[in-house]
């Protein structure tokens, strides 16, 4: 129900962040994330950065799978 896109923050100004997803850039609201900084990765949905994230899902699945046996 909620297509999300992980993207890198290029700059932040007045509650607005410029984000970059492999060269496609767009301004999105940073209104619900405090302390965003250039270089952070965020999950973007409908023009709003909704969560600070780690870029890759690899380590995440590593940990989860190690606990599954």
């Amino acid at each position, binding site marked *: 129900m909620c297509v999300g896109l992980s993207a890198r923050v290029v700059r932040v100004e007045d509650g607005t962040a410029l984000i*970059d*997803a*492999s*060269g*496609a*850039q*767009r301004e999105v609201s940073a209104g619900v994330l405090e302390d965003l900084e250039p270089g952070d990765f965020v999950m973007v*949905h*409908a*023009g709003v950065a909704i969560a600070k994230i780690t870029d890759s899902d690899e380590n995440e699945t590593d940990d989860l799978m190690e606990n599954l046996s």
Partner: protein
Amino acid sequence: MSDKTVTLAHGAGGSQTNELIETVFKAHFSNPEFTADDAAVLPVEKGRLAFSTDGFIVSPWRFNGGNIGKLSICGTVNDLSCMGAKPLYMTCAFVIEEGFPMDNLEEIASAMEKTAKEVGVKIVAGDTKVAGKGQCDGVFITTTGIGQIMENAHTSGAFAKDGDAVIVSGDVGRHGCTILLARDDYGIESDVDSDCAPLWGTVESLYSVTNDIHVIRDATRGGVGTVLYEIAGQSNVGITLNASSIPVDPRVKGVCGMLGLEPLYLACEGRLVIVAPQEHADKIVETLRKGKYTQNATIIGHITSEHIGRVVMETEIGTQTILPAPKGELLPRIC
């Protein structure tokens, strides 16, 4: 820069019409066969002719990597080329909106000249109409072309055979992505540029490898995905693609990620889908990769006698899944 614009008088058939033709069109399209009469007179060649026409409306008329002029030559040149026909002659008809800047028209005609020269096709007749303000959007162009089919070329969307390789001549979806961004409806910026290119040279190079090529199609509106479904239908075969081998520019991937779009369904204007027997496939790809517009050519799948009429993707988790058939309007999927 001048501030001159096209007026209704330029389309009235009088001296101003002549002025427009002399200063813009003849200046760019001049060649011995360019006619001042009612129709161009052309020699008849032996063999078979290919004959095609296409109308072009694109908003905005200028985009990263080309303009409507270049597009209007490429479109018809590529249609002829896909039949194995060397483009010989073209005509072009303009519908221009009153008030369209003369400099822009000049830019469009200049792009047409450059593209036609590259291919070696001659523009031999044309027509100009001026529409009242608001009756058309800038400029509409219709081009028609005649080409001489090479003796040994026999291709059709109906000729794909079980076991054939499916090759795409470059990364997919660039033109559609470029236009989507140029319209600026979604506030997304990227330096992605259109793949718009004339492909006669590419087709010629294919035939230097082998005459045994079953299908050549240029993917335009609807993208590579639509062409593949057309081939599957016309040839009554199935097509299996390897999802990870489909070349997509990262910038196109980024835009598609934002808007929930499938790159295979974004328009191309300089990409061929080629279906040929497996034994020629590697050599074809190797040859294409030396070409100006086809350096990212690659094998993306094969023709099969299974799942007739459908395009099936081999996915990253080792399953097979159907590529959804093309639908109408491309709408972003967000919520």
